[in-house]
């Protein structure tokens, strides 16, 4: 059950990274910071109305992703677009962005971890174990979002335009697709997905300015295993990683598990860059 929560949150975060890579062909190293911003903003919004924790959380769930998406749009316009999305320069720039976002949060929010109260506090009591109802909410919300994103990509006009841009930027442009707008929207969407994951996680894990690093590395792992290009692969890989995380840690120390996983994934990227689940060879 613990693993299921991890898997859903990870799937959301990694889906954001994967969308951005898939459509824009850039690796966003600052992606974990969007996750962190979501969590920190959730703390900020719930603190606005401490007497109404449920509505405070609902506010955070809506407003935090919007704020983070806005930051992403600004970053896209001011930095990424000016680099013409040149892959290597973009990575260096997003490393810079990582430091800027993380250190800004440190300045404004301080170095301490802050808790956020879960919006609901019922427990599901089953015959053999009790369970926090909030975790079920996280799973439900994340599942809805994953389905929503999948629907948006495969069934809507925006999804069509997005896939056209992904397939061939120049041709899409020639056919009147507003590529700049699509890129900005995809970057914002990717950031918002990470931010929502951050909001959902924060009642379970406290908000802290350094909390972006782990989701970033895990998302990298997921996207590489799942195939740099494949949304389905990303979700499948998120579940495998999320569910196996607990199992591996039972046999090894968490650090050793991380070392092995990191090396294994690096080797996957060297020998099977299309991922273990990606069907297309390139």
């Amino acid at each position: 059950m613990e693993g299921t929560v991890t898997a859903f949150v990870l799937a959301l975060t990694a889906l954001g990274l994967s969308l951005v890579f898939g459509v824009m062909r850039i690796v966003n190293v600052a992606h974990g910071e969007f996750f962190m911003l979501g969590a920190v903003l959730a703390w900020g919004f719930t603190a606005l109305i401490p007497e109404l924790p449920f509505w405070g959380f609902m506010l955070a769930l809506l407003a935090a992703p919007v704020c983070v998406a806005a930051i992403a749009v600004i970053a896209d316009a001011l930095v990424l677009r000016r680099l013409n999305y040149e892959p290597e320069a973009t990575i260096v720039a997003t490393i810079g962005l990582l430091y800027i976002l993380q250190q800004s949060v440190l300045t404004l929010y301080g170095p301490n971890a802050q808790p956020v109260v879960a919006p609901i506090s019922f427990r599901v009591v089953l015959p053999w174990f009790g369970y926090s109802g909030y975790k079920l909410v996280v799973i439900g919300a994340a599942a809805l979002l994953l389905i929503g994103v999948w629907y948006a990509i495969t069934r809507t006009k925006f999804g069509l335009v997005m896939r056209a841009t992904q397939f061939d930027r120049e041709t899409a442009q020639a056919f009147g697709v507003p590529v700049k707008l699509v890129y900005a929207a995809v970057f914002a969407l990717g950031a918002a997905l990470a931010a929502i994951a951050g909001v959902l996680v924060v009642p379970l894990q406290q908000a802290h300015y350094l909390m972006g690093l782990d989701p970033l590395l895990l998302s990298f792992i997921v996207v590489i295993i799942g195939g740099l290009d494949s949304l389905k692969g990303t979700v499948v890989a998120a579940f495998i990683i999320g569910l196996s995380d607990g199992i591996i840690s039972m046999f090894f120390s968490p650090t050793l598990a991380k070392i092995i996983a990191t090396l294994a994934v690096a080797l996957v990227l060297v020998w099977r860059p299309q991922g273990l689940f990606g069907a297309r060879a390139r």
Partner: protein
Amino acid sequence: MTGRARVWVLHGGVILLLFLLQFVLPDYHHTNVARIMVLATYAIGYNLLIGYTGLLSLGHAMFFATGLYGAGLPIYYFGLHPVAGFLLGALLALVLAFVVGLIVLRTSGVAFMIVTMMFAQAFFLATLYFNGVTRGDEGLVLAAEARRFGFLGLDLDLAEPATRYNMALSLFTGALLICLALVRSPLGRVMIAIRENEERTRMLGYNARDYKLLALSLSGLLSGAAGAAYVLLFAYMGSSFAAIQYSILPLLWVLLGGIGTVIGPLIGTALMFYLIDKTSEVMQSYLIVVGAVLVALVLFFPKGLAGTLRQRYARWLP
């Protein structure tokens, strides 16, 4: 003056200036400049790869830290002679770079960046995992006796500021001369050719993979030598030197000073060192300058200081 004479005058002048600086600098800056020279050696090693061969690594901290621990741990635990420790640290970094290179050079571009980063991350985690040996983030401090030794009839004490300064200067001079000689040699020419157009280089009869492996190994060797010197001269080794930040710093130094220039790494390291130093005095979140400078460089100043100088005024700058 011919191009060749200018090159020697410029770089000789920089070395001479660094030598003379030690007699006028106050204590605080004396230590800082010694540290900058060691870190600039690391940057020169990094620049061999990114600047002259065109490979952007995000994992060089593993080579720096290999030098650091490869020298520091045997000295700390077994009382190894510091000179032997230095050579061992540098050699281990060379071996690691060669072995890692065999694997990571199957990739290029973005994949190369991510794979090197992941290898370095695994290395960093390993320094935490072997906490019992390395003491992780807390780190280890070399005892004063371990840094006093006889070498070639000299009694040296690395805690002595003048000794430390001149050791750092010797290391830096060595790295600068190696780099200078290399990039002007036939070998350096091939490295630059790979940076400019790898496919064409192959069709001129060069096995590009072998030359990239050589460049990566040399780069690892210099980075490791810097790490080994660091633990000897400043007596401290800790996991933070293996963390991702120490892979990003040399990138920042080289970009600022001028990618693909011999003198750039020193300029970039010195500027960034003092910029971070000054910022940390006034604010807690001083690392924001790392981010701000990185973004600004990529956007507005991709050639860096020495690179821009070369483009505008001095085509002869190597």
